[in-house]
């Protein structure tokens, strides 16, 4: 994966750019964030996909309600020997020949059962929760690490920059998926020991940690580049002249000017993290059974793709919609906050 570093046209950036933009749009009096929001609201496609994403999140958050009150099961409960009533007829959830029931389009087993007799609809919703939770938390972790590393490297330059840049280059040299699978397989066996904290190999924190880590170079390097430019700006010089120390300058002057970049990156990172989580889970290096995720569900469905394609298509569709909505919305946010920036993550 190669990431195009943050590139900007020559000229002002951040709040200064917003001010200039505001002048051009004759909206004096509006702050940059309100201006951005106003622009975003005009972008109906982005808003539409944003709403779609919210709906997806809400449906996944409602998983326990569906599981408890509609499907009357949990995502991991097996129903191998159970039966249900369909059109007045008693039917095995899993037949004696091992073939699970197909979609019933009623409360229980709405999308059918998997070979263990687990309700696919319930697993789909819980799987979405896991996928989204991993995506958001991993993106948050990437963002925090990237901003810290990028700001330190860009502001101090010298040996801190050299050290961090080398570290990022090493990580960059491994394709994300290969690095993710390698870490996933290794950590799934022995778990992770961080000082006094032990994380089991089957914990969701493992894929979060892996995904949060492997994307750091792709955000930290553009952040560093932007900090290198910002540290030479007049307002930083002014702060320095007033006697502000490096920490204060970084937090009061530099980081606020990175806000739009961070926000845009964050939305794009969520999409990429969800996608990577699914890929890792599909390859057996992400979410561990019996926990569901869209990736594990696609993996489980592949074996039956000829006879029950919905097992693969439905979680795949959820994944596509989630990633698409986040990407389109993220682009919209970028255009609204900083129309001339071209922040993007490229695989």
């Amino acid at each position, binding site marked *: 994966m190669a990431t195009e570093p943050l590139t900007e046209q020559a000229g002002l950036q951040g709040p200064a750019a917003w001010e200039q933009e505001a002048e051009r749009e004759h909206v004096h009096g509006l702050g940059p964030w309100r201006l951005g929001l106003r622009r975003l609201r005009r972008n109906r496609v982005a808003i539409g996909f944003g709403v779609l994403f919210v709906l997806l999140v809400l449906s996944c958050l409602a998983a326990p309600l569906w599981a408890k009150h509609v499907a009357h099961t949990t995502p*991991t*409960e*097996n129903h*191998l*020997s159970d039966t249900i009533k369909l059109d007045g007829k008693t039917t095995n959830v*899993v*037949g*004696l*020949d*091992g*073939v699970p029931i197909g979609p019933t389009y009623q409360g229980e087993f709405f999308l059918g059962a998997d*070979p*263990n007799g687990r309700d696919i609809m319930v697993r789909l919703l819980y799987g979405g929760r896991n996928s989204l939770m991993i995506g958001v938390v991993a993106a948050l972790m990437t963002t925090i690490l990237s901003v810290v590393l990028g700001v330190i490297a860009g502001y101090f330059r010298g040996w801190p920059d050299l050290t961090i840049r080398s570290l990022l280059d090493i990580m960059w040299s491994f394709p994300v998926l290969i690095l993710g699978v390698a870490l996933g*397989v290794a950590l799934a*066996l022995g778990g992770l020991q961080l000082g006094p904290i032990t994380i089991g*190999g*089957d914990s969701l924190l493992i894929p979060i940690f892996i995904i949060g880590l492997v994307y750091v170079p792709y955000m930290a390097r553009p952040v560093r580049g932007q900090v290198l430019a910002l540290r030479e700006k007049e307002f930083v010089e002014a702060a320095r002249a007033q006697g502000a120390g490096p920490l204060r300058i970084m937090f009061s002057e530099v980081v606020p000017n990175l806000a739009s970049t961070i926000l845009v990156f964050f939305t794009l990172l969520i999409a990429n993290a969800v996608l990577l989580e699914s890929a890792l889970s599909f390859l*057996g290096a992400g979410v*561990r*059974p*019996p926990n569901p995720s869209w990736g594990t569900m696609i993996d489980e469905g592949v*074996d*039956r*793709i*000829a*006879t*029950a394609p919905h097992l693969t298509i439905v979680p795949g569709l959820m994944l596509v919609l989630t990633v698409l909505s986040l990407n389109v919305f993220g682009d919209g946010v970028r255009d609204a906050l900083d129309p001339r920036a071209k922040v993007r993550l490229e695989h």
Partner: protein
Amino acid sequence: MGKLGRRALALLLAALSMSVIAACGGDDDSGDSSGTGGGGGEAKNGGSITISQTSQPDFMDPALTYTVNGIEPLWLVYTPLLTYPRTGDAEKDSLVVPGLAEDLPTISKDGKTYELTLRKGLKYSDGSPVKASDFEHAVKRVLNLESGGSAFYLGIEGAQDYIDADKCDADIKGIEADDKTGTITINLSEPDGSFSNVLAMWFVGLVPGDTPCKNLTESPPPGVGPYKVTESVPNRQFVLEKNTNFPDLGPDIPAGHVDKITTKIVKSAQRQAQDVISGELDYMQDPPPADIKPEVKAKYSDRYKEITTASTYYMFMNNRVAPFDKKEVRDAVNIGLDKPALARLFAGEVAPGCSFLPPGQPGFDEALDVDDCPWGNPNEPPDIEKARQMIKDAGVAGADVTVYGNNDDPTDKVTEAYADQLTKLGFKAKPKILDGGVYFQTIGSAKEAPQTGFANWFQDFPHPKNFFFLVDGKSIQPTNNQNFGNVDDPEITKGIAELNQEPEMTDEVAAKWGDLNKKLVERAWIAPYGHRKLATFFSERMDFDNCARFHPVYFNDYSSFCLK
């Protein structure tokens, strides 16, 4: 056949393997589960067939292979001094007969010395003569290469010294061979009632005396068998062709029918099944996947059958680790284990049961698999309430339990189902799914101390010893332990030691093995849940009626395969 994990997968694969080539004629008699393949017609000779396996054999070297993927083809390439007939009569085919030896061994009164004589005029597939000393070399390769089968030959006097010497050409004190007379004398440290079976294992199929002590998967050595390996490309394919130097070893050890068998490695069982249906493949070693099987059974029942094998699937419970160190807990698990539910995960290819010894093994008592099972009829739903109460009474409700399993299909699903069943009994159980390639080593490590999990065993040879070493207190070791539950029942261990020394499998001896089997089950050292069925599925051009022989020890017999 050794390592459980690999075997499980391989066996599965082996399931369908069979009959490819065909003979003509014969009325349809689909669903025949006798394994005889006797359709009453004549098998046609000649032609080429293409078959499939889901994964590559572990090794294409007789000294090393220990999976069905490797054993099924290689036992037809490397004939040992003793072997098993291939007649289609399951009872007859379970008895050891002379292979490359002229006769069965002469055993000394103390049961420690075996004498055999090599048949005269034997030639390897490359035309070179077979010598008596080649047997010693075959044993040396097994020991020197640290094969999974080396444990079987450690009873030969001086075997351990040979291993310690770490030289391929060092001497094994307990084997004397005279190339002039063809006599071979084997001295054992202790009597071993199953040693004739051990001599009939593929590990000691004869190879030339100059065969190097290294893994020869990519260029398998010549052997004496109906077929020879002419190509071996790992992870792609291997080819067997008729061995024109195969001698006449009698009517019970026939030559093959087809001239050439190409085995392709095809990862997707779905694709394999579709290819067999369409005729692209003539036979698949794995059973058809569950969702295709109903179609196969309905539409192609004239070329599909299932056969129960001498295998046992069970859950081990580590007696040295809480909560399974309490008998009442193990009792509860045996009572609460939903065997019919687990059988469904095998697409009906597991016959529920609770006997550790499987059908076909001396000492097997069918009643133990039905009404005499102390934990309730294994074909009926379990008494979960009773089991849950027992767990509560034992004071271990809510205890954390990690259930070990591997990612082979359907083992992963079985592991998850077992964890769910333990949760329903009152534990906080979660599955731990490991890669199939490291699973059995991992659970066989004392350091890992697994609590409970999936295990299975397919017979290497029809002798109860081959199953009971899995629960023998003397076989417990810190690494590569096959006694996963650390079963160490003094009475059972003593019984195994005594019965191992019985030179003959009389009815009385078999009954004693049966008693041990019953004690093992009643004392809940393990939780058996069934015996595996394997399947045979042919393409339309194969002669299913006359050429689908199923061997009780080696499963689908490629030498019986023929075209219509």
